[in-house]
């Protein structure tokens, strides 16, 4: 096993979003599975961060951090349901 769980996304995503997205519920565009961002399978030993669906292993999120910007690709995510305080 060379992935860690989606809690590893907390720091990177907090830099971009004002809320902690690991508690959000995402829906995979590959298989429709709904689960928390924290439950994703995260591959970090790569040119960017890749999070995959724990059910079908499709890519649901890609995050590339450049020198002065970041690219967040969410095409594998149908939606994010984000709890608000």
């Amino acid at each position, binding site marked *: 096993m*060379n*992935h860690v769980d989606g809690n590893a996304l907390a720091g990177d995503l907090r830099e971009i979003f004002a809320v902690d997205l690991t508690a959000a519920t995402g829906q995979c565009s590959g298989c429709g599975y709904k689960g928390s961002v924290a439950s994703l399978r995260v*591959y970090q*030993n*790569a*040119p*960017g961060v*890749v999070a*995959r669906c724990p059910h079908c*292993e*499709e*890519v649901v999120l*890609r*995050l*590339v951090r*450049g*020198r002065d*910007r*970041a*690219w967040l*690709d969410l095409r594998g995510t149908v939606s994010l349901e984000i709890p608000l305080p």
Partner: protein
Amino acid sequence: MPIVSPGFTGRRQSPDVQLPPGQYLAEDFPVLTAGPTPRVTTDRWQFTVNTEAGQRYDWSWQQLIELPAEKITTDIHCVTKWSKLGTRWKGVSLDVLLEDVETAADYALVQSYGGYTTNLPLEDLIDGQAWIAYRYDGEELTPEHGGPARLLVPHLYFWKSAKWVRGIQLLLEDEPGFWESAGYHDYGDPWREQRYQGD
């Protein structure tokens, strides 16, 4: 008693070694992966070239290894900043595989088992610049490093050298691959430090 200290030299690098800008020398061979490692056995391995006109060319593993192979010794440069010098590979030149392929395409989208893709101009795959490599350092290429076979395009950042390669789609128009559509540079020349879009 004198104390002999070699001193702190940091990352050892001989002064005559020239690396692309921003790179450091790696002694090991780091394994980077964007997903689970595909386990593709050679009996079900297949390499396919699809042209823009819909023509398809296939090679089985046996057909691949019966083609004339070359031994390649080359430096490789990863966009995550490590470089490794003098890596030794064996593989089939894309010149051999594309020899009888009729195409008017200018671009290629390389596809891997496991879903990875990367794009590059077709002219960067020909004229002795790219290989389907199946041996590394005298051994079979391990799955962690892309085995049974990977693309080897050492003049570009190593994310272009797709592991677990299964085919090439030839295209009239450029189509970004896995990392190229998520912020990485479309071409990726390490000597011009083309890491990210806009570099």
